[in-house]
């Protein structure tokens, strides 16, 4: 019993909850049970998985699919356990400490490290917001014929309103519904009529090539799937979800489902462009170009589904990018934060969200090439990710912080492997740039 809770009889509400749990445990195994449990525990993990496939990410997957066909799908399979380990550890930090990642970095490594990590994240996030906004607007231009520049401000107004004036639970519910939009990519992949035998063969026996297109595609793929803003979001989301350590199993199910969904969707995007654009030797630089190019080779339905997916992904990812910027800076400076608070109760936090959205708009309408914005954001994310992963694993293995809940051996191995692979990818990128 809690130390300061009044003693007394159990309340009907709690009794009912308890009975439900017991009943569920006594049920025989059936295939639908796991799925029902995933739906019940769906939260920050699933949303993180959705946000991982932002318009910039979709551009990368489309571009890699168009240039390399199915030959890099194996990387998505390989990155699943790494992603689960990384996001699982980020969630563990939030569930155990009840603090955000930036606060933890400041408390344990000092203000300088927190500021350095926060500043790099802010720049990378704003560049990604700009690139994502242009990606969404370009799709709306494709669908309506109206100039893309006219869509940018209305899009941000809608996303800003929802993020700033709705509470965490409402936003979470909205995001969970929006994530259903990603099913459009599964449909687009099927409509592209890929040769499934070839897809499977290239996953199991990957045709690794050491040319520039292949290596840079691999770097971009990994840089897109393991992104720093999601570490901050996951830790903070777990804190806002208020799941205790006893619900860590639910947390892991949520994270695992989210990461599986994220890479499955990414895989279908690569399959749809690989089966069509790669086969017709067409390269693409943006997601909108991919949607447009799909029309003649996979049919109008595939093109429209692809476009809807880009729009939905932007509606999930852009607010999360802005919110994770808010968490990072508020945690660094010790400001009040949280989507569970009203805007005037956490002015610093919500101002950062609003300003990062505005900076994204500025970038999007400034005429700065969206492809360059995407490239720079990926490079910045790629540079920030490895040291941040090292910091995360140092935090998660610190016994004074985590007590009996330090990261497991598998989690440590996964995060270290992710940091090493990301670091090697950075070196490969640097080598290619110098050469």
């Amino acid at each position, binding site marked *: 019993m809690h130390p300061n809770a009044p003693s007394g009889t159990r309340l009907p509400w709690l009794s009912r909850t308890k009975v439900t749990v017991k009943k569920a445990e006594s049920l025989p195994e059936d295939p639908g049970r796991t799925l029902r449990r995933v739906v019940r525990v769906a939260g920050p993990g699933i949303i993180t998985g959705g946000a991982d496939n932002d318009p910039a990410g979709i551009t990368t997957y489309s571009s890699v699919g168009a240039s390399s066909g199915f030959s890099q799908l194996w990387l998505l399979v390989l990155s699943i356990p790494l992603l689960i380990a990384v996001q699982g550890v980020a969630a563990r930090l939030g569930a155990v400490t009840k603090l955000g990642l930036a606060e933890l970095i400041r408390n344990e490594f000092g203000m300088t490290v927190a500021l350095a990590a926060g500043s790099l994240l802010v720049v990378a996030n704003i560049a990604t917001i700009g690139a994502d906004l242009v990606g969404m607007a370009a799709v709306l231009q494709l669908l309506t014929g109206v100039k893309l520049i006219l869509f940018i401000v209305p899009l941000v107004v809608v996303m800003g309103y929802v993020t700033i004036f709705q509470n965490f639970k409402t936003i979470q519910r909205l995001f969970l519904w929006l994530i259903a939009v990603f099913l459009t990519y599964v449909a687009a992949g099927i409509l592209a009529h890929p040769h499934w035998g070839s897809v499977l063969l290239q996953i199991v026996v990957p045709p690794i090539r050491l040319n520039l297109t292949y290596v840079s595609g691999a770097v971009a793929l990994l840089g897109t799937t393991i992104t720093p803003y999601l570490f901050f979001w996951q830790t903070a989301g777990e804190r806002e979800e208020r799941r*205790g350590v006893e619900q860590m199993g639910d947390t892991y199910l949520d994270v695992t489902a989210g990461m599986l969904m994220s890479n499955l969707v990414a895989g279908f995007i690569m399959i749809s462009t690989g089966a069509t654009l790669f086969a017709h030797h067409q390269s693409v630089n943006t997601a909108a170009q991919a949607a447009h190019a799909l029309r003649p080779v996979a049919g109008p339905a595939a093109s429209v589904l692809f476009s809807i997916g880009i729009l939905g992904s932007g509606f999930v990812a852009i607010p999360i990018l802005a919110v994770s910027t808010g968490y990072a800076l508020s945690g660094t400076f010790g400001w009040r934060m949280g989507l569970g608070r009203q805007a005037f109760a956490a002015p610093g936090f919500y101002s950062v969200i609003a300003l990062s959205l505005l900076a994204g708009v500025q970038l999007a309408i400034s005429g700065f090439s969206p492809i360059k914005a995407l490239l720079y954001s990926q490079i910045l994310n790629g540079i920030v990710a490895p040291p941040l992963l090292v910091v995360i694993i140092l935090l998660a293995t610190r016994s004074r912080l985590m007590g009996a809940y330090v990261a497991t051996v598998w989690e440590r191995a996964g995060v270290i492997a992710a940091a090493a692979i990301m670091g090697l990818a950075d070196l490969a990128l640097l080598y290619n740039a110098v050469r």
Partner: protein
Amino acid sequence: MSAGHTMREWWTKALLQESHSAHPVLGNDLYVKVDGQVVTLEGTVESADQAEEIEAEARAAAPQHEIVNRLTVVGNDETQHNQAVLALFGNADEARVAAQTVSAWKWHGDRVPEVHKGVREARRRLRELAESARVPSDSLEDLVDAIRNGKALLIDRVPEDEAVRIISSLEGTRAQCIRTLPPEPDSLG
């Protein structure tokens, strides 16, 4: 009439005239007090989730108002461990003011957090908490050093779900550093 409509009607009445009546859906006794732009929720609910749900309803009903949630949770969630929240302040007065603020935000009763300014007492208490949380006992010595240098330490040991709320309320005070100890493995519900 739908449950949603009944609820909206209840909130409209509650916001127009200070009301003390049963919530139409949850059935709990709630007291809604309106003072200018501030709406204060008081009364008892059976879980932290209910307290949050009611707060969200109040926000939706009065989006322009500040909502102060002073609901008390009377049920015990048996899946929640106890967890200590620690905050350092420049002096004892600041810590005491923060302790009063925090106690007003509590769901599980309104016990005022402990404030320590004596080195020996703080060390003893921190070692107790470290043992319960299974962290090395000397890992909190930096906090003892801070007290030796004139700082004051606020300690609040609460259920996990309330720890988040306590941290949120401390973020609005003059706390120089907010930390937590991990949930105590042996203190379930």
